[in-house]
């Protein structure tokens, strides 16, 4: 959610002081294997932290890199993309296309300052409930150790433009 400042441009809801901060993770999960796997984690009682919000896509191949960027711009601290394991994609090879695209995105975002450890990709099969829970937990811990995201967040860079006249 963006808050509009009077003098500067948009900024995000201020994150609470470090001690109260909880990482916010968005997971893009495909409707077939991954969703089933994530659901199974729930029914099997395999706990994973509430920090992870799931966004369902028909296939990991639907992932537009702009989804990840928009997430970072809104101050999301970490992103997880989950697709069907190789050879299990309902649509053929959407999962493979996604991993190639994601790998290049990850490299470029790390080049602009996103810490390695914020962007994750995983294969989760329909029966792999515990795996989903484990991966989600790992991602949360990985992001927790990095602190709040500071790259691409809207509003943070306003000060650098204030002294210049374009």
């Amino acid at each position, binding site marked *: 959610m963006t808050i509009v400042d009077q003098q500067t*441009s*948009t900024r995000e809801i201020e994150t609470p002081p470090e001690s109260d901060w909880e990482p916010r993770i968005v997971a893009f999960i495909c409707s077939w294997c991954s969703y089933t796997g994530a659901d199974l984690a729930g029914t099997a009682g395999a706990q994973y932290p509430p920090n992870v919000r799931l966004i369902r896509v028909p296939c990991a191949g639907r992932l537009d*890199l*702009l989804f990840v*960027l*928009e997430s970072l*711009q809104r101050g999301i601290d970490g992103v997880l993309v989950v697709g069907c394991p*190789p050879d299990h994609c309902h649509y053929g*090879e959407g999962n*493979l*296309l996604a*991993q*190639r*695209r994601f*790998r*290049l*995105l*990850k*490299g*470029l*975002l*790390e*080049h*602009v*300052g*996103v*810490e390695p450890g914020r962007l*994750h*990709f*995983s*294969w989760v099969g329909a029966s792999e409930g515990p795996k989903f829970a484990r*991966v989600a937990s*790992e991602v949360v811990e990985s992001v927790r150790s990095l602190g709040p995201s*500071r*790259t*691409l*967040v*809207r*509003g*943070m*860079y*306003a000060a*650098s*433009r204030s002294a*210049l006249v*374009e």
Partner: protein
Amino acid sequence: MQDLTMQLRDTARSLLRDGKVGLVIGYEHGSVLLRTKPCFVRNADDTDRLVWSPLCENNIASYLLSIKGRTAVFVKGCDARALLCAISEGQIRREDVTIVAMPCEGVLDRRKLAERLQGRQISGGTVQDGKVTVVGQGFSESYPLSELLPVGCVHCTHRTAPVFDIRIGDAAPEIEAIDDYADVKAFEALSPDEKRAYFRQELASCIRCFACRQACPLCYCVECFVDQTQPTWYHKTGDLSDTLLYHVVRALHLAGRCVGCGACSRACPMGIDLTVLNRRLLRDVQELYNYVSGLDPEAAPLLSAASPDDPQEFIK
């Protein structure tokens, strides 16, 4: 280069006279010293306008995306690769283009020259035999062209068109060192804070004019993502986050396609080196997928396919 200019003109003249093409695209003398500009010739009698030299900086492949009919282009290696990439993406028909390969050993970077001149005005200048010579009031100086190359040429790996219909002159000798992406590795080694600070500073100058996008021969979307309003990805007001978003996404949309010609940086009115982002992707694409764009007009675009053999160590 004089001889190359003559040969170029002869070729253009016969292509037009024989009706092989209806239009020839090359370069002609610019309106200021040490400058050329894109030239469009339809008449065989007009071919004396065409020139060839290290001043032929623009990537003229761009024009073929909007021009219909049989056309000949006099291209450097980078221009040709962009053209081949556009052909592989179905944007231009191979049979409509006559690719005339010119030898290129790099073009002059006008900004680097301006740095040497320190505000002094020149009244004359030439670029010949690898040397740039300038004269002005009270001075006459010479610099090796190799010291005044733009970023695209410094890292060039294909100086002459890899696929062509006609070749003029000998193919330019390839640079001995393969691009080792040392600059990318060095930047990669910086801390996230340092990287952020670098982009914050560089992109503070960005005025979001999109000249980089327009100059790029492979940015040809009818509706660019920055113009989408439903949903709105890119916000028009001044947040540096959106400036960075634009450059990151544009680089990503060129992943596996960018040929490293440097037209983007050259077009930037503020002198920002935009290739820093593209070079990271050029390195990754080559190292991870052994893919180099613009060499084969029949190649499948990199992101239209994937292999189970792709490196997957990053996948949980």
